């Protein structure tokens, strides 16, 4: 275990940011911290880096307690969103900084920097002034600088946050491959789901002052434990619901769009009558029917607000009782009555419904 965080608590002005947070990262693992802005993802990295003092709990790196070790002695690498390249040094000196503080031999420094420059496709950039680099080049220099002293763990705080989309897509692929080749342990902060999917071995969700779920991208996508996790994963159609009837496996939830019947739902044992909960409706589990033949269970009257082309499917924006629901209709299932402004019937497949216990 490279990083072990147990029972971590951190307060700012008596206001807790983390309470009893636990996180474990194995050697060579790339863990992405995904969370809404303001939940303290960056603060967690700063605590690990030793830039902020820990209030309670322990942080161990390679089995060694580092709570009271200054950041300069923790042997970690960190890359900030705003990079913090040293403006008065050229590319070479920026990358060599961490090696020079360790009083490495000149030859070793040269070899290591050259190695990193070629690894990050920055050959010939050594003498460049950092002011003259493009955004992507700056990013790579900052990464090289963090990697240079062979850190035990690499902390990346929104490393691509300031770049535009196409460049991000290219760089996130490159970073993933590079760091995997180096077999380096990484903790990577982002708020972008797609980036997390590309980069992560595991995704850890930060919410409510702790890590609420951690798992492989597929794992968490198929089985989000909380509505907030589902939201971070980009799930739409999350409704507030209240259980109003429970009989064996048959449940009836009262929601903003009306009553929804659910059958054979896993993990609903702890849901009690009249308890508030959240329901997720899978957008591919929604069928749009002609208004004339729609009187079934789980069928609602809706108005089509918009139809958005998404490649191999259309996203239909439906308005049910003033609430927006999104349906995913494959292009081949296009019907003549699916037009903007039409009143249609909407059938929700109860197999596509999931219930979360958090609020």
């Amino acid at each position, binding site marked *: 275990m490279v990083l072990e965080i147990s029972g971590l608590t951190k307060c700012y002005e008596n206001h807790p940011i983390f309470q009893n947070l636990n996180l474990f990262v194995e050697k060579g693992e790339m863990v992405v911290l995904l969370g809404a802005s303001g939940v303290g993802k960056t603060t967690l990295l700063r605590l690990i*880096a*030793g*830039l902020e003092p820990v209030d309670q709990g322990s942080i161990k790196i390679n089995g060694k307690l580092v709570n009271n070790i200054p*950041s*300069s002695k923790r042997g970690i*690498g960190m890359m900030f969103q*705003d990079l913090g390249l040293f403006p008065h040094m050229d590319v070479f000196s920026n990358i060599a*900084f961490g090696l020079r503080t*360790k009083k490495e031999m000149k030859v070793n420094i040269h070899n290591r920097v050259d190695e990193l420059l070629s690894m990050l496709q920055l050959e010939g950039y050594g003498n460049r002034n950092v002011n003259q680099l493009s955004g992507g080049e700056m990013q790579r220099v900052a990464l090289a600088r963090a990697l240079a*002293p062979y850190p035990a763990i690499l902390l990346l705080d929104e490393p691509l946050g300031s770049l535009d989309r196409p460049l991000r897509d290219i760089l996130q692929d490159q970073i993933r491959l590079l760091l995997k080749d180096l077999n380096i342990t990484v903790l990577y902060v982002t708020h972008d789901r797609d980036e997390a999917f590309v980069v992560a071995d595991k995704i850890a969700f930060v919410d409510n002052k702790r890590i609420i779920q951690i798992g492989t991208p597929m794992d968490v996508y198929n089985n989000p434990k909380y509505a907030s996790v589902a939201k971070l994963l980009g799930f739409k159609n999350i409704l507030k619901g209240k259980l109003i009837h429970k009989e064996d496996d048959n449940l009836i939830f009262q929601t903003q769009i009306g009553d929804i019947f659910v059958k054979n739902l896993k993990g609903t044992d702890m849901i009690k009558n009249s308890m508030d909960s959240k329901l997720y409706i899978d957008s591919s589990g929604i069928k749009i029917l002609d208004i004339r033949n729609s009187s079934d269970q789980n069928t609602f009257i809706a108005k089509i607000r918009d139809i958005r082309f998404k490649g191999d499917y259309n996203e239909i924006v439906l308005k049910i009782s003033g609430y927006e629901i999104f349906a995913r209709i494959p292009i081949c299932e296009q019907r003549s009555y699916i037009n903007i402004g039409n009143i249609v019937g909407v059938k929700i497949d109860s197999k596509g419904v999931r219930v979360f216990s958090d609020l």
Partner: protein
Amino acid sequence: MIRRDIARFFIFTPVIIFIGAFIIYPVLMLFFRSFSGEFSTSNNVIDLLRNNNYIWSVVWFTLWQAFLSTILTLIIGIPGAYLFAKYNFWGKSLFRSLVSLPFVMPTVVIAIGFISLFSTNGLVDRVFSMIGLDGFQVNGVNGLVFILLAHIMFNYSIVIRIVSVVWENIDERLLEVASILGANWMDIFSRIILPILYPAILSAAILVFMFSFTSFGVVLMLGGYEYSTLEVLIYQLTTKMFRLETAAIIAIVQILIIYIFLYINSVLQQKFIRDNGLSYRRIVKKEKLVNSKSLIVLFSIVILVFVMLLPLVALVDRIIFISGNYLESFINLFKFREHSYFFISPWLAIFNSLKFALISSFISVLIGGIASYYLSSKKKQNRINLIDAFLMLPLGIPAVVLGLGFLLAYSYYPIDLRGSWVVIVLAHSIIGYPFVIRSILPMINNIPSNLYNSANVLGGSTIYIFRTITIPLIWRGVLVGTIFAFAVSIGEFGSSLILYRKDLVTIPVAIYRYLGQPGDANLSAGLAMSLILVSVVLISFILIEKIRFRGVGSFY
């Protein structure tokens, strides 16, 4: 558009005439005279410089005392800059004003403060005997120590202002990155902070060096017979030995040295701007100063309070000590022996000083205001920069040299201004107007051009726009510039002394004269006059600090 350019140039003409007549022409006269007159043989300059060991010893002293002053000011100033850059503490803005106070103080007053501080029965002497160190010979302290202390006091604020601005803007992120990469505080200081501060420190050092290099009042009054700078030498050659040509040669040499330094400074400033060009959000952090055990902080505060204020305290203390109370000293001053040959009327000095200050600050504002308006043009930046540098010429011409230039230029038919108050007023205006430009120009430049564009689109005439937009937005700058010019004139010593006639005496010159004469009555008169001077400058200074916006009117 073209019509407006012509109008702009037309308005600028008086400035050109003024500078041509009262700066360029006198300096040309210096050149002319230094290559003619009784030294008309072709190699006179070389002869003079080759055969006169005294001149070389003065050049040598001027250089090394300036060097030493610079080093000492930096050693003391950099921790102070750290204090101002990184901490918030009670009374910070007051302290900031206090450190700048000596900079605007007339050199005569600083000199007299040091004399009071270390003289027999002075503050230091009495404190030492109180704690049983009677044997300490305060009078034995070398004049050089006074000179260096005065230069430190005078220039401390330059280091603080220039260095602390850069220091407080160093991105906290850089220090965090360095720390994570294994740098301890020594590494961080020597490899991150110092290299980033370096251009600012160098720039401050050059200014300090320049001010110490051209130091006049302090050296004249504290240096005794032993120590003399080029400025003092020029003054003595002119007024005591009537060797105008020799003085002119030295003045030219001095101006050249100064411009070399000014040039290096401007090059550094350019580099400095480039180096900090990396544009991203900076994170700057300030800590509250509570029970800080940091030695640097303590050191800075001690320096602030003692070095900066002690001479002024000593001045007041001395007056009380000599005359028992303030009042008596003032009464002494004004019921002075009028029959004495050496009598200098305090009333005349005060009257003259006020008159000169009023007229010269008016001229300074006129010249500086017009120049600022011209310099604010957004077009042809290169030319504007050149004109800006040209307008700042007086900053590189020491007051004594300027006075000498006036003597050479305007003592002969058809324009003989010898003994006329006009020369002193002109000299003061020249010394004052760069301060006016530095007060007004930033304010004009801060007016967003969109404002003018909107006003134009809305159909305002040029005069209407000037009256309703420009004036309300710059009046503070104009006022600050006026007060600056007024204070500079009131405290001006070098040119007033070299152009001195008995009926043209000003307060600083009177103080110098009083101190040059024996007797307690003269001393206490000098002290009392100093107090008046300090009060006037202090009030001006407080007004300036109250009126000006942040960063406006800071000329260095």
